């Protein structure tokens, strides 16, 4: 069981002026593992996610990623070119609002095919076939391959975003509130899909959510953030059934159950 972690975040610090967004955050992520980052608004969880993805600069810290070739790269100090290439191939990022993660003016097929075209795939027929396969995998009717995402429902847009990210078989996918704003039945469908795809493709996932139900369903491990700090971490069931920290207890007790 001596397996190397896929990602190792070391002492990540990020402030916005005097506002501390992330203080000394460290954790590891293994292949196939789902890590949930939970907390309320302003906890710094989205900032952490964006910092790990290289979309935000950090004040200090390391984000050590083990690439497919086994090389360890610190994404903080990596070049723009390296980081951008990784984000298009081995990493995925599912945005909270699908419109931020999709090209709304291009068809579903074009959206799914883009990452493949970016890495040099130039056969139209193959690209289309791959797009069709993925649409099926995310339960979007293949007839809609030439439709614009504008014409899709929120849940469909999210599923399209997932397909767009998974098409290059990334090893890590970051998700920022993937079910935010969706109706409960739509949410359930999306979560089910995520659960299955994560298992099938052995993707490591970091999912930021304020919804403990989503965390319970998707995540193996959780980190609870409050005001930029990780107050508690452990297995999902440990944190939700036996919360130690006062804030975790508060979060857990605040959840309505049906």
């Amino acid at each position, binding site marked *: 069981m001596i397996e190397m972690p896929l990602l190792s975040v070391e002492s990540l610090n990020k402030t916005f002026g005097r506002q501390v967004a992330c203080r000394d955050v460290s954790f590891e992520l293994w292949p196939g593992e789902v890590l949930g980052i939970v907390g309320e608004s302003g906890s710094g969880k989205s900032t952490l996610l964006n910092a790990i993805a290289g979309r935000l600069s950090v004040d200090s810290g390391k984000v050590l990623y083990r690439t497919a070739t086994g090389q360890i790269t610190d994404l903080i100090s990596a070049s*723009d*070119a390296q980081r*951008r*290439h990784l984000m*298009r191939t081995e990493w995925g990022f599912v945005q909270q609002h699908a419109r931020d993660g999709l*090209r709304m003016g*291009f*068809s579903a*097929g*074009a959206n799914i*095919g*883009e*990452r493949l*075209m*970016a*890495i040099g795939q*130039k*056969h*139209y*027929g193959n*690209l*289309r076939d791959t797009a069709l396969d993925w649409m099926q995998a995310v339960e979007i009717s293949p007839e809609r*391959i*030439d439709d614009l995402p504008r014409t899709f429902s929120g849940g469909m847009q999210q599923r399209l975003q997932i397909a767009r990210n998974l098409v290059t078989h990334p090893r890590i996918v970051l998700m920022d509130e993937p079910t935010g704003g969706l109706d409960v039945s739509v949410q359930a469908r999306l979560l089910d899909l995520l659960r299955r795809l994560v298992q099938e493709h052995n993707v490591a996932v970091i999912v930021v959510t304020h919804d403990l139900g989503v965390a319970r369903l998707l995540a193996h491990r959780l980190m609870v953030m409050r005001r930029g700090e990780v107050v508690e971490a452990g297995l999902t069931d440990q944190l939700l059934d036996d919360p130690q920290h006062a804030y975790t207890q508060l979060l857990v007790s605040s959840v309505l159950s049906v």
Partner: protein
Amino acid sequence: MSSLQQSYQTTATLDGYNFGFLDEQTKRMLRRAILKAVAIPGYQVPFGSREMPLPYGWGTGGMQVTAAVIGGNDILKVIDQGADDTTNAVSIRRFFVRMTGVATTEKTREATLIQTRHRVPETPLSEGQILVYQVPIPEPLRWLEPRETETRKMHALSEYGVMHVKLYEDIAQHGHISTAYDYPVLVNGRYLMRCSPIPKFDTPKLHMNGALQLFGAGREKRIYAVPPYTDVKPLDFEDHPFEIERWPEDCALCGAGDSFLDEVILDDRGGRMFVCSDTDYCGERRAAGHVGKMSAPYKEEAAE
């Protein structure tokens, strides 16, 4: 007085204007930009675009490039949509005559410097000739990515996947790549470039051309270049390769089957004919005795 300056003095320029309209320092700035552009084929070099005596959108970029490279011994040809006699071509040609006193010609073969809007001459160009294109929008990624900061990064990192996305979309929506002009090409295997609004038909002419090809965008303030004998490849898909346009008929005047044809409506009953867009090419063919189905035998016309 240097011999260069002397040669300038001998040609008849309009009183009060410097040779070529622009001052010498401006021309040097432009030439520096052009040299850089030639050194990095297909790369858009920013330059300090000057006010020209016509508004943006009318060829100011092309004119600045021409003004920078034109010399007293040049023979200038100016075409617009392939024709020497449209208003724009006439105006620009007259401007340079006034500003430089150079000789002009309508014959592609005789010209040393050709400024063009939206067409490449049919007659193949040779070493020693310069072709200056007028460019409205230099950035091939502009419609896909409005941010200049982002497009610069994409060029720097060769992130051109999104251009293929547009072509994919064309095929998905129309069954074929519908870009009919200003086709995106990859220059020297490195930079993605716009050819300026020349028809798809002309795109292959850029490849391995003996002439120096310069591109000037006045409003957008960019110059780029394709040096002689450079690799220029249109983007396409393996299973949807690049294809040029074809017409159902040959040129009605000269019978050419290998040139870009304009469609001319003859009457209101749907009558039409196809005619070479390149007036010089058509004229030469007719002078050589070729006929199309609509032409009378060619007659010598008085020089302008």
